[in-house]
């Protein structure tokens, strides 16, 4: 339902963070009912631009911005996000903005709760109205149904798997009837492909009803599928603009990074893998929303072992359980010897390392500099970057070595930052992810668990990260267990892929099998039993 009415007009917006220029001069228009795709490399300034439109306080606190923008022809002056909400802008942030201790319903309707009158209202005013729980639940269910997902309105956010949290955020924006312009900052990054499809369908429906949408994503096929028009941001300017029909992922990707990009090719391993390194027997993990109910598998030394499956089925629980972050039981053998579970320190000592899917919660020290983030785990677990005095009695941080290590990874993974002393919080989402990877590499692990390693990472960086993993695997022979929602990613790098369904392994397939075989395993439609391996 695209019309010619201009909802948003952005004129020459520029922004720097104390001299670090992020946006130079950005101008574009969004029409009513139009879906705009905004893409660009990590740190290109997409989130920053959206934060400006949404009136977030970070922008003012860091010196404001230049240029103007107009909503329905009127110049916008937002002193806070409340003004933006009033003006009809809704935003789903790249990082969750939910109250963890509250249910889905309460989060969806926060500040817009249904209320009932009671006698006190007459005396003391509206603030004393009762919550109308029944009606709230109805509205929440309504919003959830629009998304067409299986989300329990009574579930506490803290206990939800990430995918469900994301749907809660989106449902919140849908419930607002006044929203005219919806900003979606990487809403699909935490979703599996099938969930992302659901989300895209919902967004299309909203656009048909006349809502304008700005959609940010690093998955280019999604962008082309959903959006009417695509804008590419690079070095603070819009460098490319096209109707979706007239372009393709490759063209967009190349204008994003300003160079040509090669497809990631899966190469067959030259030599056969021999020794068993890790044996998992009947592992149970009590990770809320990702419960593991008895999985069995064996990983060979030097292998890249993929774990896939739909969100909430338990694929994420496996790594978290083995690393001791959630209570688990069962038997895990490393080099033939049983290792004690629920003991992170011990596991790290043995040469395990882990990149968590929850980068802000588990993966990062947001208020500490990059170099600390990268080296801390290696320092604590392996006593690297330490100088010892008095025969090891006194152990001190070796700041020089720490700096050197950090610079090495900043260069290797092309982490975009002002210096190694920048706080992790001030990095763009994708660059935070790279810091998490660097942290795992710095452990020089023998076996590396990575969960969702390319979540929120742009195409160029994705190539970089997958290549880095592969190179690490080939050169240092480390074994990698990669958990991902993106099947294509798993197929491009793994030697074998296990699909998890309902807390159990539904089957283990080589990557050369057709995608439909994997799909059937994911939805539990295939009759290969837990141990079964199709060759």
């Amino acid at each position, binding site marked *: 339902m695209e019309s010619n009415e201009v909802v948003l007009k952005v004129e020459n917006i520029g922004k*720097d963070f*104390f*001299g670090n220029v992020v946006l130079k001069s950005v101008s574009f228009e969004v029409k009513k009912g139009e879906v705009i795709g905004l893409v660009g490399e990590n740190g290109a300034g997409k989130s920053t631009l959206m934060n400006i439109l949404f009136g977030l306080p*970070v922008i003012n606190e860091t*010196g404001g911005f230049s240029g103007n923008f107009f909503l329905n022809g009127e110049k916008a002056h937002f002193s806070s996000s409340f003004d933006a909400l009033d003006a009809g802008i809704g935003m789903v942030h790249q990082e969750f903005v939910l109250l963890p201790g509250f249910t889905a319903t309460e989060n969806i309707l926060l500040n817009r709760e249904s209320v009932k009158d009671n006698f006190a209202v007459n005396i003391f005013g509206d603030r004393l109205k009762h919550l109308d729980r029944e009606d709230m639940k109805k509205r929440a269910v309504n919003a959830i149904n629009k998304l067409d997902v299986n989300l329990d309105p009574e579930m506490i956010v803290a206990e939800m798997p990430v995918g469900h949290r994301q749907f809660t955020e989106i449902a919140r924006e849908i419930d607002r009837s006044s929203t005219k312009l919806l900003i979606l900052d990487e809403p699909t990054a935490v979703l599996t492909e099938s969930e992302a499809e659901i989300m895209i369908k919902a967004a299309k429906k909203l656009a048909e009803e006349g809502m304008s949408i700005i959609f940010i994503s690093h998955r280019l096929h999604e962008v082309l599928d959903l959006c009417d028009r695509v804008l590419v941001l690079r070095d603070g300017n819009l460098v490319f603009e096209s109707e979706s029909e007239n372009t393709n992922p490759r063209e967009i990707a190349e204008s994003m990074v300003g160079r040509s990009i090669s497809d990631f090719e899966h190469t067959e391993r030259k030599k056969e893998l021999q020794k068993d390194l890790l044996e998992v027997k009947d592992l149970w993990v009590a990770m809320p929303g990702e419960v593991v109910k008895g999985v069995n598998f064996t990983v060979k030394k030097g292998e890249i072992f993929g774990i896939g499956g739909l969100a909430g089925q338990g694929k994420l629980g496996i790594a978290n359980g083995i*690393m001791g*972050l959630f209570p688990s039981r069962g038997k895990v053998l490393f080099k033939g010897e049983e290792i004690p579970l629920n003991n*992170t*320190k011990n596991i*790290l*000592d043995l040469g395990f390392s*882990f990149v*968590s899917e929850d980068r802000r*919660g*588990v*993966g*990062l*020290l*947001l*208020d*500490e500099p990059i170099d*600390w983030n990268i080296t*801390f*785990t290696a*320092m*604590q*677990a392996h*006593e690297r970057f*330490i100088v010892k005095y008095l025969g090891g009695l*006194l*152990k*001190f*941080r070796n*700041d020089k070595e720490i700096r050197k290590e950090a610079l090495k990874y900043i260069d290797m993974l092309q982490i975009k930052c002002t210096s190694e002393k920048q706080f992790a*919080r001030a990095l763009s989402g994708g660059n935070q992810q790279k810091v998490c990877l660097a942290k795992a590499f710095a452990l020089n692990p023998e076996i590396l668990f990575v969960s969702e390693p390319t979540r929120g990472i742009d195409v160029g960086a994705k190539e970089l990260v997958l290549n880095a993993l592969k190179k690490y695997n080939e050169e240092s022979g480390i074994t990698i267990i990669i958990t991902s929602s993106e099947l294509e990613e798993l197929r491009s790098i793994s030697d074998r892929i296990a699909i998890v369904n309902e807390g159990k392994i539904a089957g283990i397939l080589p990557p050369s099998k057709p995608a439909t075989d994997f799909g059937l395993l994911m939805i539990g439609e295939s009759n290969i039993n837990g141990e079964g391996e199709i060759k």
Partner: protein
Amino acid sequence: MKNSIIESIEKIGWPRIIIGLFLASMFVIAPFVGVSVGTSISDVLVRFTFNGVLVLSLLPMVKSGCGLNFGLQLGIISGLLGAVTSIEIGITGFLGFLIAIGVSIPFAILFGIIYGLLLNRVKGDEMVVATYVGFSVVSFMNMMWLLLPYKSPDMIWGYGGTGLRTTISVEKYWFHVLNDFLSFEIGGVYVPTGGFLFFALMCLIVWIFFKSKTGTAMTATGSNPVYASSSGVNVNKMRLVSVIISSIIAAIGILVYEQGFGFIQLYMAPLYMAFPAIAALLLGGASVGKATIANVIIGTFLFQGILTMTPSVINNIIKSDMSETIRIIVSNGMIVYALTRRKKARG
């Protein structure tokens, strides 16, 4: 250019700039209302040296994520036990002071362990619980000061009574042992060199500690406990250690305070010691979750500066003695101001 000015202001923080300017204006007004600038500066310097260590003692707990130590009384009481024991033994001078420290440390460790274990069970509500702990301990000690078998006539109620007095003079024992060390006078200003040196030494020790492996782990624990424990750090142990260290420094801090002030104050006095220390730290730019040694130094200086200057200047203007009232208004006013102006930790 404009940016770099804004940036440096942001870095120092508006509250500190405003209060710093206010303090400077007090010094400008002082001579006109008949307050001697030399004496004032001496006062500020002396007060700075005897309060600094107490403020410093808050640092480890803030860093490990236990928040502002509203239970500072616990450490203080360990220090008091050391002080009275040292006087009972009767050794004077610097050695007596060292004995006081030596005796107080085991108490601080013991109390710290109990307090730390308690705080580990109430994660998220540390500051509320700490306040209660502070109050309870002071009440309990009110009884103990009467019952403990101290005999020195310099400390017990007159004419052979039992129980310790509310204020005990250290005049005969270790009054100004730190402050007078290498002290000198220049242009009417008394500089308590030894006090500065001791405070600097304590800061140095804390600074070095936070460069150690354990200190780094402690900081990370406060920054993100989940991250720390996924890196193999025992989060509860780190918090416990931070509480113990805080208690030890607080015990030393109160002894430094007493040698400067001249009296050991028992019974209800410790109750009122936590607030000013916390106010100074906040004023210095710390928050509930983050603090640095620079915050300690700047905060103590500004807080003690205002606390010394405002009453004497105002007294001389209105020509009547209201110093205590003004002091209370100013110090509590500053707590409120620091708390409201504090840049909230973005979540």
